[in-house]
C-alpha cells in the first residue's frame, strides 16, 4: 500500500503489464519521447525501447487499425487515443473493426487490445477536448469499457484489461491525473465487471463513475451532516457490469440517482436509470433521477465550463430534495 497519483498508478500498471508480458506494446501520439500528453508514459520508451513504445504519426484511424492488426497476430497492444474527443475519427476502427471482428469471423479472430484514452472537463480545453463519450462505446456490442475513478482502480482496471481476450476501452479522466490516493498492487478494489460500493447508506443510492465519484462522495459527506445517508456506488466497469449489486442497493433504499459528467441526453446515466427503472420498479419510492452535463458543447470559459457539469453542490442539493422534499434555492 503506497500513496501515489492516478497518473503514476497508470504508469505503474503499464510498466508491470509490459514486464509481465513481452507481447504488450504501447502505441500512440507522443507516448514515447514526449512521455504522453499528460505525462503518463514518461520514461517508458527508455525502459522498453522504441519497438515496444511506439510514437506514431497523427493518424488516429490507422493507429487503432494498426493495434487491431497487431492484436490479431499475437501482440497485445495498448493504443492510446490522446483525447476521447478524437474517437470521432476512429469510431470505424473501434466499433466496426475491433468490436466486431470476433463475431463476424465466427469466433476465429479475437482482438485483445486495450484502447487507453481520457476525457472530461476541467481544463478549459473547449468543445473538442473535453467530452465524455463513453455512451458511444457502451452502445457498441463487442467492446468492454472501464472508467477508473480511484488510484487503485487506475492501476488494477488497466492490469485486468491487459488480460482480457477482447478489446477494452479504458477512459481515464484528465482531471484526476494529479489526484493522490492509495495503491495496493496486490489487491484490486473489486473483481472485473463488479461495481464497488464506496460508501454505504440507507437513504438513497448515488450511482456514478470517474471524476463524478468524487463530487458524489463529497456530496454524501455533506448529506450526512444533514442526517441523510447516501450510498455511493462506483460503476467503474461499464461493460461487463454485474447489475445485481446495483439492484440490491436500489431496492434496499428505494431512491437512486445516476450521476455522469457527459451530456445527459443519451448518456450512460440514461441507460442505467432505464435499467433500474425496469428492475427496481416495485421497490422505488421516487423516480430514478439522472444528473449529468448540460446538453451543450463544452464552452472554453472556465466559469461556463464548470457551470455546465454536475458539482458536489448540485449532487447534494438534488439528493436532499429527493430524500427530504426540501427544494434547494435554485429550484425556486
Amino acid at each position: 500500500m503506497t500513496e501515489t497519483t492516478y497518473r503514476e498508478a497508470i504508469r505503474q500498471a503499464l510498466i508491470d503489464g509490459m514486464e509481465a508480458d513481452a507481447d504488450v506494446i504501447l502505441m500512440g501520439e507522443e507516448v514515447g519521447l514526449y512521455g504522453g500528453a499528460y505525462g503518463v508514459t514518461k520514461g517508458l520508451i527508455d525502459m522498453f525501447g522504441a519497438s515496444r513504445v511506439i510514437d506514431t504519426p497523427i493518424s488516429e484511424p490507422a493507429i487503432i487499425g494498426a493495434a487491431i492488426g497487431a492484436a490479431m497476430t499475437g501482440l497485445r497492444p495498448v493504443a492510446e487515443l490522446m483525447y476521447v474527443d478524437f474517437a470521432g475519427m476512429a469510431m470505424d476502427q473501434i466499433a466496426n473493426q475491433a468490436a466486431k471482428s470476433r463475431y463476424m469471423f465466427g469466433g476465429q479472430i479475437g482482438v485483445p487490445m486495450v484502447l487507453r484514452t481520457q476525457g472530461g472537463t476541467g481544463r478549459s480545453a473547449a468543445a473538442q477536448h473535453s467530452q465524455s463519450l463513453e455512451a458511444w462505446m457502451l452502445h457498441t456490442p463487442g467492446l468492454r469499457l472501464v472508467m477508473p475513478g480511484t488510484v487503485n482502480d487506475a492501476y488494477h482496471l488497466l492490469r485486468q484489461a491487459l488480460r482480457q481476450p477482447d478489446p477494452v476501452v479504458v477512459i481515464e479522466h484528465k482531471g484526476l491525473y494529479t489526484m493522490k490516493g492509495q495503491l495496493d498492487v496486490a489487491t484490486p478494489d473489486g473483481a472485473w465487471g463488479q461495481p464497488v460500493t464506496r460508501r454505504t447508506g440507507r437513504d438513497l443510492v448515488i450511482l456514478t463513475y470517474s471524476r463524478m465519484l468524487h463530487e458524489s462522495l463529497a456530496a454524501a459527506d455533506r448529506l450526512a451532516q444533514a442526517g441523510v445517508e447516501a450510498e455511493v456506488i462506483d460503476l467503474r466497469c461499464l461493460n461487463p457490469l454485474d447489475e445485481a449489486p446495483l439492484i440490491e442497493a436500489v431496492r434496499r433504499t428505494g431512491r437512486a440517482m445516476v450521476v455522469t459528467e457527459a451530456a445527459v441526453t443519451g448518456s450512460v446515466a440514461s441507460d442505467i436509470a432505464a435499467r433500474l427503472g425496469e428492475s427496481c420498479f416495485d421497490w422505488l419510492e421516487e423516480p430514478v433521477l439522472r444528473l449529468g452535463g448540460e446538453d451543450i458543447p463544452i464552452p472554453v470559459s472556465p466559469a461556463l465550463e464548470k457551470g455546465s457539469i454536475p458539482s458536489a453542490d448540485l449532487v447534494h442539493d438534488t439528493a436532499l430534495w429527493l430524500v427530504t422534499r426540501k427544494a434547494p434555492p435554485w429550484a425556486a
Partner: protein
Amino acid sequence: MTVVSNTGPLARYRMMRRIRSFEERVGELFLKGGSAGSMLHLSIGEEAVVGLTDAMRDGDSFTTHHRGHGVFLGRGADPNRMMAEIAGKQDGYCRGKGGSMHIADRALGHLGANAIVGGGISHVIGAGLTYRNRGTGQISVAFFGDGAMSQGILYESMNMAALWQLPVIFCCINNQYGMGTRVDRSAGSRDFPARAAAFGLNAARADGAEVETVHDTARAMVSAAREGRPGFLEIDAYRFFGHARMDKSPYRTPEEEAEGRQRDPLARARARLLAEGAAEAAELDRIDAAAGTEMDGALDHALAAPAPALSTMFQDVYAPGTPAPRPQADRLRAVLAEEARA
C-alpha cells in the same frame, strides 16, 4: 497448414479457373435464393491477383475488401466452407455470421474481409509490427479496390509502413470502377503508384490481364517487403460484371464492357500456355472441367448445409468464458416475473 505458393504458370492458370468457377457458382447460389443477402461481389476479371497471392508464403497474412473471394481462394481457401459462409450456414468459415463480405481464416492468415471500403488496410500495419518485432520474416498484404484510393486511412497506413519500414504490401486491384463511378470520376490523378511513391513506398503497376506479369512484379516486391521495404502494387484490371448481384451497370456502355472483357486474364493465360507449349488444350480442358465439378460440389454443399441455431447469435460477441450478452428474453422475464412477485 500449408498453402499453395510459387507454383508455376500452369498451377496459376488452374487457380484462376477455380476462382472463376467459384464466382460463377456464387451467382447461381444467389439465383437459387440460397445466398445470405445480395451483397455479393464477384471478382471475375480480377483473377490475375493470383500473381501476387502465389508470390506469398505460408504464414504470410492478408486482409481483403468486399470483393475478396478470389484472393482468399488464391491463398488456399476451402471452397466448401467459403460457399457455406456465403450462404450464411453453420459450417461456413464464420458459422454464418459474416457472409461474403466478412470471411476470414486464421489458419490461412486471412485476417478478414471487410465491408468498409478501406477498413482492413491498416490492419496489415499491425501485423507488420508483429512480424518486425519478432523478426519472423513474414509479410502482410492489404488487398483493396480503386475505390479505397479515396480513403484517408490508406495514406495514413502507407506513411506508417514507409516510416517504420514494415514488411507489408498494399495491393490495389483497380477494376476501373467503384460501384457506378469510373476511376476518372473519382481520382484527381490516376497515377496511383505515384501517390504511393510520394510516401516512400516501392510502387508499381502491373497489367492485370497478364498473370505472369503480375507475378514477376509481385515476386520482386514481396522479397523487398520481407527485407523491410514496403510496397504498393496496382493491378490494372476490369470488373466484368455489375458491382453486386443486382447491378446491371447501366452507367457504362456495352462497347466499353466488351472491350474490357477482352482483357481476360484467363483467356490470355490459356493462350500463352498453349503458345509456349507449356500445356495442351486437352489438359487445360480437364483443369477447367475439374474446377467446375469442384465448385458444383461447393454449391451443393452450401445449399445442403444446416442453418445456424438461433441461440448461436449470442456466441462469439466476446470470448468464451467471459460474460456474454444477456438475451433480451432473460431481461424481460426477470423484470416482468420479479415484478409480479413483488
